[in-house]
């Protein structure tokens, strides 16, 4: 009988989780050539045999700067996404900005409009936070009538997690002096689309960061170099890359990306607008779609959970499509609005199973089942799909995406 086991049992068994993959050369492999040595490098790269771990790109053939690239979640471990594998969503390309000529402008309903050059910003006190960042359109294939047969990254990989370091925005807002009648801020990027969004001032005065660094190094070009707005827990499109302008105001601009796009049409014909917070979500990354279990035995079920409302409180896993649940182990650190890695030991008896995970966050928000989400939101919402993800394990060990 298949069952989830106590973690200690898993460790005592001394067995190792393995999928059908090319065998790694053992230390004493007979006939193996002696390894080649190489010299130092100024900037390290993945091992040659790991260079298949990449972002898949989906872009518009007539407008190559408009599209996405997905984080290969199934190939990664822990909670931090390597910067070069952080997902991308660009509306019109990646500007290559000369940091010498970059400036952030804060104006509008302020006592004193101010310009901050990059050298100025680099002198302000900084804060580091590990935070997930998710596109509002992530997982939108989940709305489809048939379950998409793609690896977890190509399905759910418009989410990544980085340690962002930068200047708390409220320092600069306070320096400019905010008019007490102000309620909104229009943030604009320096990309070719001059992407702009309207943001409630209260969020920017609370925990918004002007990120200069990602995972310890200066931002990658495609993640907004030299300056990106970070809004913990909020939809990715609001976290403007190449941030160059903040206009403090008393009303939203009603830009395309907060009206025509990034709004969710409901079954009654109305649409949810300014739905900023990304809901609780979890998924099993291993085993996941496209992988194959080599045979009955002991496996580690592992995945990621996050919530834009706060920290992950608990993750449950199921092997029978949600009829029974058992708690997974949350691996430290469990941080506010950050990826949390969960693990569970699973004894598979070789019969068909449906693996699922569901998360509850510290405010009690529970990840919905797919039927419940669609009953509430319909199937035309497009954005903010966060339903439970189901992987069927067939008798031959093949793992595929199903609705359950």
């Amino acid at each position, binding site marked *: 009988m298949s069952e989830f086991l106590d973690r200690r049992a898993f460790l005592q068994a001394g067995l190792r989780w393995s999928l059908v993959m090319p065998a790694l050369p053992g230390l004493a492999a007979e006939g193996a050539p002696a390894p080649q040595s190489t010299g130092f490098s100024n900037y390290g790269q993945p091992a040659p045999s790991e260079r298949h771990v990449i972002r898949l790109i989906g872009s518009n053939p*007539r407008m190559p700067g408009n599209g996405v690239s997905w984080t290969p979640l199934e190939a990664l471990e822990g909670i931090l996404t390597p910067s070069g594998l952080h997902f991308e969503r660009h509306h019109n390309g990646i500007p290559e900005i000369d940091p010498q000529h970059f400036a952030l402008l804060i104006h509008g309903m302020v006592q004193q409009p101010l*310009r901050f050059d990059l050298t100025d910003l680099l002198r302000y006190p900084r804060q580091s936070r590990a935070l997930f960042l998710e596109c509002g359109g992530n997982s939108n294939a989940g709305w489809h009538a048939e379950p998409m047969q793609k690896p977890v990254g190509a399905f759910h990989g418009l989410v990544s997690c980085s340690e962002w370091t930068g200047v708390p925005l409220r*320092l600069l807002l306070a320096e400019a002096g905010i008019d007490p009648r102000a309620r909104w801020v229009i943030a604009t990027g320096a990309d070719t689309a*001059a992407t702009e969004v309207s943001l409630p001032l209260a969020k920017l005065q609370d925990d918004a960061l002007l990120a200069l660094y990602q995972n310890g190094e200066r931002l990658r070009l495609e993640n907004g170099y030299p300056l990106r707005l970070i809004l913990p827990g909020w939809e990715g499109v609001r976290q403007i890359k190449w941030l160059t302008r903040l206009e403090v*105001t008393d009303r939203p601009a009603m830009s395309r990306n907060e009206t025509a796009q990034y709004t969710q049409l409901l079954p009654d014909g109305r649409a949810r607008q300014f739905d900023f917070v990304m809901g609780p979500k979890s998924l099993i990354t291993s085993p996941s779609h496209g992988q194959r279990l080599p045979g009955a035995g002991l496996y580690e079920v592992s995945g990621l959970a996050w919530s834009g409302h706060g920290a992950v409180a608990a993750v449950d896993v199921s092997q029978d499509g949600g009829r029974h649940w058992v708690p997974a182990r949350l691996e430290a650190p469990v941080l506010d609005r950050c990826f949390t890695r969960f693990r569970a030991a699973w004894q598979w008896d070789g019969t068909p199973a449906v693996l699922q995970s569901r998360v509850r966050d510290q405010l009690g928000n529970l990840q919905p089942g797919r039927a419940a989400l669609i009953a509430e939101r319909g199937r035309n919402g497009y954005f903010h799909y966060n339903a439970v993800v189901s992987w069927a394990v067939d008798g031959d060990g093949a793992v595929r995406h199903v609705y359950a």
Partner: protein
Amino acid sequence: MAMARCVTSMRDGTGWIAGQGRLTSWRQAGRRLTAGLVGIVCLPVGLLLTSCATSAPPPTAVALAPHLGHPVTSDTLAGLGAQIYPDGHGLPAGSGLAVDGAVLYGQYCASCHGREGQGATAPELIGGDGPLSAAEADKTLKTYWPYATTLFDTLARGMPPANPAALSDDQRYALCAFLLARNGLWPADRPLDGASLSAVQMPNRHGFIDLSARGNPQP
């Protein structure tokens, strides 16, 4: 150490306040730079720190900021181009006719949005039928967009994508006139300007549920 923990836990955002020596030096710097502000901000800080039992409250993050912003003149701001709002604020002078917009559409837009605006590699811009409550709802400029000013704003910021500076403001008004006219939202023979654009009542003007208050920090 107890004090350092208290400082970082009051959500002042300055996690680099790790050691007593550095804290002291930054306090002095903060006082030099913002002597006037410290008095204003000390009261709430004191309240936050009541459980820390420290002798003197540290300055807040506001007091610690080095205050390096450069004042910007109104001339500089005027040269940036105004933010466009639904009430027409920020829309530039100028006007355009649908007949001219039709030519521009063929020249700049049709290759991605379709010859008849039916959509291709870019979204549909002309047409869209049925209620938004339909099972296969058609979300278009005509059926879904709540404000016509958003159309001008989108054109002015980034259209056509290969060269957003290619169009003049008059040409943008002409394109708006053409697209709105083809969607039955503007008389084809009337020139469109900023005032008339912001007065266009889009069919889905009241179709949105404003959730902006959710997810905000509690006051």
